[in-house]
């Protein structure tokens, strides 16, 4: 920085906090001396048209560009929840797949022995490699069967996101499928209490509920949440489209 333009150095004889003499407000020539500012010219309250946050008229690109009518806020909330629930439907499906993989590989489950014990002995005679290959094939088949619902979940999740964003006109199939999966999961949970007398069910539910029951019920809940919000979204969209006020959803 050129020394002639260096920021003023504070003379050491001036105590901290005091404004040094040579830094006191510069003497203003008398013709420019601050005068008593008449009330009507004092820096005062902001005229309403220039209030903070509002754009002065000469810079305004038109009306305030936000979409905050009550219906529009609710629509955005609904759309966001459809996207999130759709993501949750996919996520629970993927988690189910991952759990199967981890469970069987970390616990080193012998699927051949589990599913066909009589075959196990004869296969062992063929050699360890053959046994391992058959085990691996069974493992992948098992994964495929147990996670058949995964492609459907992915379809539901992606359709929900596209529908909420208004990217494509989506049919109601994904909503129906979502409700169906939720019902199947709940039915599966209820069926596990088939042999239990009705009067004992509440106690049995609390005692016998396993972590996978919890995740299945939550997965079902995400499907129902998605169904609920997706239906609401369609109803709101119809009303807002009539008024030409459908808001942006990213």
């Amino acid at each position: 920085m050129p020394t002639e333009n260096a920021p003023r150095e504070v003379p050491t004889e001036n105590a901290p906090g005091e404004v040094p003499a040579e830094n006191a407000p510069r003497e203003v020539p008398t013709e420019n001396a601050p005068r008593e500012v008449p009330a009507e010219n004092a820096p005062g309250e902001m005229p309403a048209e220039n209030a903070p946050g509002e754009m002065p008229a000469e810079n305004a690109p038109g009306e305030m560009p936000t979409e905050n009518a009550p219906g529009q806020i609710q629509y955005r909330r609904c759309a966001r929840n459809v996207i999130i629930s759709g993501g949750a439907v996919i996520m629970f499906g993927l988690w189910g797949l991952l759990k199967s993989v981890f469970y069987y590989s970390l616990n080193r489950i012998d699927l051949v022995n589990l599913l066909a014990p009589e075959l196990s002995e004869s296969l062992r005679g063929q050699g360890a490699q053959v046994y391992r290959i058959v085990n691996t094939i069974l493992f992948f088949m098992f994964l495929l069967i147990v996670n058949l619902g995964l492609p459907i979940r992915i379809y539901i999740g992606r359709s929900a996101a596209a529908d909420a964003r208004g990217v494509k006109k989506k049919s109601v199939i994904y909503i129906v499928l979502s409700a169906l999966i939720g019902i199947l999961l709940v039915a599966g949970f209820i069926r596990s209490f088939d042999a239990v007398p009705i009067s004992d069910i509440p106690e049995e539910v609390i005692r016998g509920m396993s972590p996978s029951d919890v995740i299945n019920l939550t997965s079902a809940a995400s499907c129902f949440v998605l169904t609920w919000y997706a239906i609401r979204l369609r109803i709101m969209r119809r009303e807002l489209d009539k008024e030409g006020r459908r808001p942006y959803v990213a």
Partner: protein
Amino acid sequence: MTRINRIENFLIGLLMIAGSIALAINPEESLPVITAIMSVSLWIYGIRMMVYYLTMARHMVGGLRVLFRAILMLDLGYFAMGLTEIPLLYVMLYLAVMHGISGVINMLRVREAIRLEAPSWRLNFFQGAVDVVTAALCLIMIRSTKLAVYIYAAGVLYSGCIRVIQAFRKTTSVYVQ
């Protein structure tokens, strides 16, 4: 920090120091304990996320995402607890990744400190070097139960000491009117 925070920090710190010593005494028996701690930590993380959703995230735009993640974390914790064993491999990989990341950040700090000519670069360099060497050891001696236990115990010991020190730190801001 309020008095309750200080007491809490002090007690937790002492517990962590005692725990780290207990782990290091018998490495073979400590490994299942460590894997159990890691599983329980996941479950506790899920609970905390759930509480976070109920107290704060439900007010947030897109807060529903937090709820679903909380449930997933809870199930992950349950799942980990239900496994009969977590192989040593995964424990070592976890330790290697944690120390590796910490080491890289410290080295970046060293670069920044040298650029600004700050004296703190020496301490950061030492910490970074320790982390990087630890991460490398975890990968090289990936089948060593003793190493896994000692490294984990050292981390717990360090965290415990920090907590105890913090319990005694003066933290009150002074406002001179």
